[in-house]
C-alpha cells in the first residue's frame, strides 16, 4: 500500500521530458526505417510471386538468384555511392557518364595504346574519383546546386568518351578477359564472379563508413540539417567534397565492372544509368530529402529492380519497356510512402 503510494507520488513527479519520452515510445518505432523495411519485404514478396508463377521454368533456381547479382553488380556499386549522395541531400547525375568514361578509358588504353591493363584500371578509378572531386568542389566552393554541378560532370564525361573514340572498342586484353571471366562455381550450374565480390566489398565499405565513421555520421548530419551540421562544428566542406569524390570512385568502379561484363568500351554505354541507380536507391528507402538512407536498403532496391527484369524475361511476351513502367510505379509508391512518413512525423511533432 505504502509502496504503491510512493510509486504514484514518484511518477507524478517525473519530469515532463521523461513523460514525453514514455508517451512517444511504442508508436514511433523509428519511422525512418519503414521504407527500407518495406523494400526488403517487397523483394521477398516479389520473389515469392515469381516462384509461384514461373517456378516450373526455374525462377527459384539458385542460378536465377545469383544472376540478380552477376547482372547488376555494376549498378549496385554505383548505388552505394549514390546512397551517400542522396543521404546528404544531394543528387549525382554523372554516374552513368563517368562509368561509360571508365569503360572507354580501359578499352582505348589497353587496345589502342597497349598500356598495362592493371595500371589502366587504377587510372580509370582515379579519373572517376577526380571528376567526383571536381563536382564536389564546384558544389561546395561555388555553391552550384548538385543537380547542376553533376549535370555538368555528366556532359563532360560523356563528351570525353567520344573525344577518345566514337567507336565501340572490344577489349581483348588477356588479363582483363581473365578477370572478367573468373568465377566461383556454385551448385546448380550457378556462379558468382569478381563483380559480385567487388560489389559485396563496396557494400561492406558503404555500411561501415556510414555507420561507424565520423565521416559517415557527418553525411547524415549534413543531410538532416545542413545549417546545424555547420554550427555543430562539423567539417561540412570536407564532407561534401568527400561524398562526391566517393560517388565518382563508385561510378568509375561501376564502369570497370561493366567493362568486365561486356568486354567493350563505348561512349554510348550506360545511357540513363543514373536514373536506374537513383530509382533503386530511392526504392531502397533513402529519402530524397536527405538525412535517411542505408546502403543495405539500396542493395534491396537493386534486387527489386533486377527482379522486375526477371519477371519480364521469364514472362517472355512482355516488352522490356515494361521494366520502366514497373519501376515508375514502384517509385511512385515509395515516394508517396516517404511523403506520408514525413507528414506523420511532422504531425506528431506538432502535437507535443
Amino acid at each position, binding site marked *: 500500500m505504502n509502496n504503491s503510494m510512493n510509486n504514484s507520488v514518484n511518477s507524478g513527479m517525473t519530469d515532463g521530458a521523461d513523460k514525453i519520452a514514455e508517451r512517444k515510445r511504442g508508436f514511433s518505432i523509428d519511422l525512418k526505417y519503414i521504407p527500407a523495411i518495406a523494400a526488403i519485404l517487397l523483394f521477398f514478396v516479389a520473389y515469392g510471386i515469381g516462384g509461384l508463377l514461373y517456378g516450373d521454368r526455374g525462377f527459384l533456381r539458385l542460378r536465377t538468384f545469383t544472376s540478380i547479382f552477376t547482372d547488376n553488380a555494376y549498378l549496385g556499386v554505383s548505388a552505394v555511392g549514390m546512397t551517400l549522395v542522396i543521404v546528404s541531400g544531394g543528387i549525382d547525375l554523372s554516374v552513368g557518364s563517368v562509368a561509360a568514361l571508365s569503360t572507354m578509358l580501359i578499352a582505348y588504353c589497353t587496345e589502342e595504346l597497349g598500356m598495362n591493363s592493371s595500371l589502366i584500371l587504377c587510372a580509370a578509378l582515379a579519373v572517376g574519383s577526380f571528376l567526383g572531386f571536381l563536382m564536389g568542389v564546384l558544389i561546395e566552393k561555388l555553391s552550384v546546386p548538385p543537380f547542376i554541378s553533376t549535370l555538368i560532370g555528366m556532359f563532360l564525361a560523356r563528351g570525353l568518351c567520344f573525344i577518345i573514340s566514337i567507336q565501340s572498342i572490344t577489349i581483348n586484353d588477356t588479363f582483363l578477359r581473365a578477370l572478367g571471366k573468373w568465377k566461383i562455381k556454385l551448385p546448380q550450374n550457378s556462379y558468382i564472379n569478381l563483380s559480385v565480390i567487388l560489389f559485396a566489398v563496396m557494400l561492406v565499405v558503404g555500411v561501415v563508413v556510414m555507420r561507424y565513421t565520423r565521416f559517415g555520421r557527418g553525411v547524415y*548530419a549534413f543531410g538532416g540539417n545542413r545549417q546545424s*551540421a555547420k554550427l555543430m562544428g562539423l567539417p561540412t566542406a570536407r564532407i561534401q567534397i568527400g561524398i562526391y569524390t566517393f560517388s565518382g570512385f563508385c561510378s568509375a568502379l561501376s564502369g570497370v565492372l561493366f567493362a568486365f561484363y561486356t568486354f567493350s568500351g563505348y561512349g554510348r554505354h550506360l545511357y540513363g544509368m543514373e536514373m536506374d541507380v537513383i530509382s533503386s536507391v530511392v526504392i531502397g528507402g533513402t529519402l530524397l530529402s536527405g538525412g535517411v538512407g542505408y546502403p543495405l536498403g539500396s542493395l534491396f532496391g537493386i534486387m527489386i529492380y533486377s527482379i522486375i527484369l526477371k519477371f519480364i524475361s521469364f514472362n517472355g511476351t512482355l516488352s522490356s519497356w515494361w521494366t520502366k513502367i514497373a519501376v515508375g510505379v514502384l517509385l511512385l509508391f515509395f515516394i508517396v510512402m516517404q511523403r506520408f512518413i514525413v507528414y506523420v512525423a511532422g504531425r506528431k511533432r506538432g502535437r507535443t
Partner: protein
Amino acid sequence: MVMEPGSQSPKEDILKEDILLEASGIEKRFPGVHALKKVNFTLRRGEVHSLMGENGAGKSTLIKCLTGVYGIDEGAIRFRGRDIRPESPQHAMRLGISSVYQEVNLCPNLSVAENIFVGRELTKGPFIDWKRTEERARNILARFDMRIDVRRSLDSYSIAVQQMIAIARALDVSAQVLILDEPTSSLDKVEVAKLFDVIRRLKNQGMGIVFITHFLDQVYEISDKITILRNGELVGEYRMEELPKIALVTKMVGKDYDELAQVSRVEAREDNKVVIALDRVSAHRSIENVSLELRKSEVVGFAGLLGSGRTETANVVFGLEQNSAGTIVLRGTAVKLASPVDAIRCRIAFCPEDRKRDGVIGDLSVRENIVLALQARQGIFKYVKRKQQYEMADRYIELLGIATPDADKKLGELSGGNQQKVILARWLATEPEVLLLDEPTRGIDVGAKAEIMKLTLDLCREGMAIAFISSELDEIVRVSNKVVIMRDRTKTGELDGKELDQDAILKAIAGGEAV
C-alpha cells in the same frame, strides 16, 4: 586559475578574478546600421546575467560578437583574463563559450547520443565506439535528470527535450560560459521550470550564464543581474533587486514608453458607413451564427480565448474558409468570398496570426515582400514595374518607420517588429478598405507594440475599417471603439464606448450572458 565547482564567494562582486567574460567598448557597424556603440558587458562566475532590450537593441549582435559569428570593429573581449578574438562559433566553443539558440540547431534525423557527440564520437581505432558514446550520452543527460533512450532519433522527442539536448551538447565541451538565446520561447511552464533547475545547477557549479528572453517574469525568476541595451547602446548594468519591473521596461523602451500611454482610440461616429457586414454567418466547424458590422474609421476589437472563433471569423471574411450559411455584405451588396484572391479584389486585407508561417517570406527582400499582395491582386501577368516597386517600398519604409538599411535587405534578417510592419505594408499597398489584424503585436517588443497600435489608429483615422484580434486585452481596450466577444465559436456579445475596460471584457468572455 582553477575552477572549483560550487566555490562561489559571497563577495562575488568585488573579486576581480570572478570575472569570466568581459567585453569592453564593443563597436559593431553594418552597412547603414550602427549596431553596437561602445557596449560593455561583464559576466561573472556563478551568475545568471540577463541581457535585455527591445528587438534591434543589439542583444543578438552582442551575442554574435561574443561567440565569433561576427567580428568586432573595435573593443576587446577578455575571457578569464586573457584577450580573445573568437573567429567562429566553433572557436568560441573550444575556448569555453557555448551558445544555444532559440531554434534548436541539431539534426533531427540523428540519434540523441549522436546529436550530443557528432563530430567527436568516441572511437576505437578508426571506427566509432557506439557503446561508449551512448554510455557517455546517457551519463551526461542523467546530470539533467533526463532518462531517455539516447538511441532514438532526435525528432521523436519534444522541442523541450531537444532544447535540453542542445544544452547538454553545448556543455559537454567543457564550457564555462553558456549563452541561452530565447531558450524558453517554445517551452511550457513545466518545461521552463525544469530548464531553470538545470540553469541553477550549472550556476552553482560556477558557470556564467547569459540569458536572453522576452518574458519579464522569467528574468526576475532566474537572474542575478541584468544588462540593458537600447538602440545599440548600453543603458546600464543592474542587480535584479534594485530594478523593479516598471523601471526595467522604461529603461528598455526609453522615451517610447510614454508614447504607449498616448495611444488613444479614435472617436467613433454613428454616421460612419458600414463597410462590411456579416449576417448570421456560419462556417463548417469554425464559426456559428456570427453577425457583426465593420464601419469606416472604426476599430473593432475581437476578444475571446484561443479557438473561440476570433481568428476563424477573420478567415471567413478573408475567404480562407467558406461560409456555409448566412451572408457577407460588402458595401451594401452580398458577396461570395471563395478565396483570398476574391477578398483582396474586394479590398480586404489580412495580417495573419503566425507571421513566420503565413506571412514572412524571409528569403525575399523587403521590397518583394511588400509588393507581393499587390501583385496577387493584379494577377501574375501584370508586372509591377521595378521602379514603381522601389518607390512603393521606400514610401512604406518611411511611413511605417521600418528599420532597414534599404529595400533590398532580406526580410528574414529584420527584427520581429519590423517584419510585422513589412507585412502590414504589404497589405497597405493594396489600399484596402477593410484590414483584419490577427495578433499584430505578438512576439514583438513593447516599443514596437506601441508603434503598431499607433499605426492601426492612424489607418483608422484615414478611413479604414479595422478588425483588431488580440489576446492582449489591454491592447484591445486601447485601440477599439467596439469589442466583439467571441466564445465557443460564436459571438456572445458586443461592448462599446463607455463600458470598455479589461474587467468588462474578461467578464463577458467568462460570463457568457449576452451583454
